[in-house]
C-alpha cells in the first residue's frame, strides 16, 4: 500500500512531536516544574500515529493514563497540552485535569483516563452513536496489556459485538502493567486469540514500525467503518521510560532498555525506510526535527509564562448550570 507524501510527512512530524514532547516533559518533571502523576509514551509513538492517521476530527478516540501520544496524534494542540501539564488556567482543561485527563472534545479526543479500562465502555457509547446516526464514524479506544484484564474491558468488547457497533479496540502491549509482566497478568498465552474470541477480527502489528501499525489499523478501521461491527489492533512495543517518572524498573532484564532504544525505535525505523524508498529526503526529515524542537521549546516557554488559576475557579465547571453554595 503506498502512502501519500503528505501523510508520510505528517506521520513523521507527529511521531517526532510526541517523542520530543515526552522527553521534554520528563526533563521538566525532574526540574520540579510539572506536578502530579505523569506517564510517558516514549517508544510507542508509532501506535498512536499509525492508528490516528486513519481518523478525522469527528471520529473519536479515548485514551489511557499514558495519554499524551494519543492526544497529540489525534490533533490536540501541543501548547495547550503543555500548559495543562504545568497546571495553567490556559491549559486545554484549564488546569483542572493535568496529564491524566488531557481532552479536547471538539477534536474527538474523549480524554486520557486515570482509571485503567475506564475508556473502552465509553468508546462503545461513541460507536453506538455513530451506528444510530449512520454517519460512518468510528470510535477508537486504547488499552494496555494490563488494562485488558479489567472487567470493563471485557464487557465493552462483548457489548460492542452484540450491538455491532463500530468500535475499534487498540491493544498496546508494552509488556508490563506497572511492575507486572504480561506473562503473569494475562492468564492465557495468546492475548490476540483471547480478544478474537469475543467475536471480532484483530490485526497484529510490530509497534516499532509505523507502516505495520498503519496497515493493521487501516484494516481494523475499514472493517468497523463498513458496518461490520468492532475490530481490534494488537501492537507490541516497549516503553522507554519507567511506568512513571522515577520508577526504579526492577522488572527489566539486563540490557532490555538499551535494546529497545537501539533496535526498536519507530523514528529510526521510519527514517531507514525513507532512505530505502526515497519517498522523503533526509533534509526534509531534518527540517521537521528542527521545527518540532522549536515548537516544543516554545510550548514550554509559553507554559511557564501562562496564567495561573485562581481560587474562584475551583468550583467552576462542576456543572453547566447550578453553582453549589458550600
Amino acid at each position, binding site marked *: 500500500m503506498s502512502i501519500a507524501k503528505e501523510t508520510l510527512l505528517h506521520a513523521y512530524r507527529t511521531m517526532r512531536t510526541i517523542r520530543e514532547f515526552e522527553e521534554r516533559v520528563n526533563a521538566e518533571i525532574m526540574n520540579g516544574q510539572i*506536578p502530579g502523576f505523569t506517564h510517558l509514551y516514549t517508544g510507542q509513538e508509532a501506535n498512536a500515529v499509525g492508528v490516528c492517521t486513519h481518523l478525522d476530527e469527528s471520529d473519536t478516540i479515548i485514551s489511557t493514563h499514558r495519554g499524551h501520544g494519543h492526544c497529540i496524534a489525534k490533533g490536540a494542540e501541543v501548547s495547550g497540552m503543555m500548559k495543562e501539564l504545568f497546571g495553567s488556567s490556559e491549559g486545554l482543561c484549564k488546569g483542572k485535569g493535568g496529564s491524566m485527563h488531557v481532552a479536547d472534545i471538539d477534536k474527538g479526543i474523549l480524554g486520557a483516563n486515570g482509571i485503567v479500562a475506564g475508556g473502552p465502555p465509553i468508546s462503545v457509547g461513541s460507536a453506538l452513536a455513530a451506528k444510530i446516526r449512520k454517519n460512518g464514524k468510528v470510535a477508537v479506544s486504547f488499552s494496555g496489556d494490563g488494562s485488558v484484564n479489567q472487567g470493563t474491558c471485557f464487557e465493552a468488547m462483548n457489548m460492542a459485538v452484540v450491538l455491532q457497533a463500530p468500535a475499534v479496540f487498540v491493544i498496546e502491549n508494552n509488556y508490563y502493567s506497572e511492575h507486572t509482566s504480561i506473562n503473569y*497478568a494475562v492468564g492465557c498465552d495468546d492475548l490476540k486469540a483471547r480478544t478474537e474470541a469475543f467475536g471480532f477480527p484483530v490485526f497484529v502489528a510490530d509497534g516499532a514500525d509505523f507502516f505495520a501499525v498503519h496497515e493493521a489499523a487501516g484494516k481494523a478501521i475499514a472493517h468497523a467503518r463498513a458496518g461490520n461491527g468492532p475490530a481490534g489492533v494488537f501492537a507490541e512495543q516497549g516503553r522507554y521510560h519507567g511506568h512513571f517518572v522515577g520508577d526504579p524498573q526492577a522488572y527489566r532484564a539486563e540490557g532490555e532498555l538499551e535494546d529497545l532504544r537501539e533496535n526498536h525505535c519507530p523514528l529510526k525505523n521510519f527514517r531507514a525506510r525513507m532512505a530505502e524508498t526515497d519517498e522523503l529526503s533526509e533534509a526534509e526529515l531534518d527540517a521537521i526535527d528542527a521545527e518540532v524542537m522549536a515548537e516544543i521549546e516554545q510550548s514550554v516557554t509559553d507554559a511557564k509564562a501562562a496564567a495561573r*488559576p485562581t481560587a474562584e475557579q475551583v468550583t467552576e465547571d462542576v456543572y453547566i448550570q447550578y453553582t*453549589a453554595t458550600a
Partner: protein
Amino acid sequence: MPEKTMRDAINEALHQAMEQDESVFVIGEDVAGCSGSAGDVGAVGGVFGVTEGIYHRWPDRCIDTPISESAIVGAAAGAALVGMRPVAEIMFADFIGVCMDQIVNQMAKFRYMFGGKSRCPAVIRFSSGGGFSAAGQHSQAMYQVMTSFPGLKVVVPSNAYDAKGLMLSAIQDDDPVLFFEPKILYQETADVPDETYTIPFGEANFVREGDDVTVVAFGQMVPKAAAVIDALAEEGISCDLIDPRTTSPLDENAILESVEATGRLVIVDEAPPRCGLTADIAGLAADKAFSSLKAPIKQVSAPHSPTPFSPELEAAYLPDADKITAAIKATLA
C-alpha cells in the same frame, strides 16, 4: 520508643500479623511486584511500599493480581467467608468506583442477609485523599461515602502509632474492615513500639484537650487541626481535638461529652460536604447536644467539586490552617 513512618508502621503490622496467623495473606496489584518479569519478584511491595518484604518471607501468601479490582475485592471477600484473613490492597481509594458492588452489595451484607450465620474477616486497604496534584480520579477520600454502608467498619488513621494498632485490630476483627491510609501521611513519623498492640474500634483519641471549642477532624486533617490549635493556644483559645480514628463504629460519646463541656463544635474533613462526615457529626450534635450549644456548628470541608489538578487549585480546595482558624474563631465570635 523508635520513630517510624506511617508506611513502616503499617508494614510492620502486616509482617507481625502474617507471623502470628497463617490465615492472613496479602493480595493486590504489585503487592509483591515484578511477577512474571526478568526481575526479582517481590522487589516492589506495593506502589507505596506498604507491603514491602512480605513476598520474600511468605511467597505463597503475598499475591500479585492482574488489574481487576472487582475480582480482588471479591476474592478477598470469598476467602474470608471460608475462614481466611485476607488483606487486599486497592491502590487508590478512588478505584472503589470499579469494585463498589463487591464491597457494598456483597461483603458488607453477607452477615445480615445470611441471618448472622457468616463471618467475613477481610481487610481492604486503600491509599486515600488529596495533596499530590493527582486530580479527580486519584485524590478522593472516599471513607465518608463508605461510612454510610451498614456492615462495613471504616478506619482512618491520622498517625503512625494509631495506624499500626488499628491495622492489627482490623486484621483480628471478624467483620469486613475498610482501611483508608491518607497517602500524604505515609512519610510522617511517630513513636511506634516494636511490639504488637491493638487500638479498639469506636474509641476516639483526644489529640489535644481544652475548654473553649470542640474540634473533630479526620485523617490528614488531624495534624492540620492540631497545628492550628497549638497556634490558637498562644492567643488564649483552648480546644479539644478529637480524632475518631474509626468512622464506623463512631465514638459518639466522646464527641457529645466534649460538646457538652465546650458548647462549641467545629468539624474538619477533606472530602466534599454533601452527605459527608462533617454533616454527619453536625447532625449528631444538633440532635443530641443541642441544648449545650452556645454557637452555630461550623463545618470545614472541601467544596462540592471534584479534586482539581493544578497545585494552586488544590491548595484552595483542601481545608487549610486559615479556614480551620476562621471556623474556630467564628464559634467564639
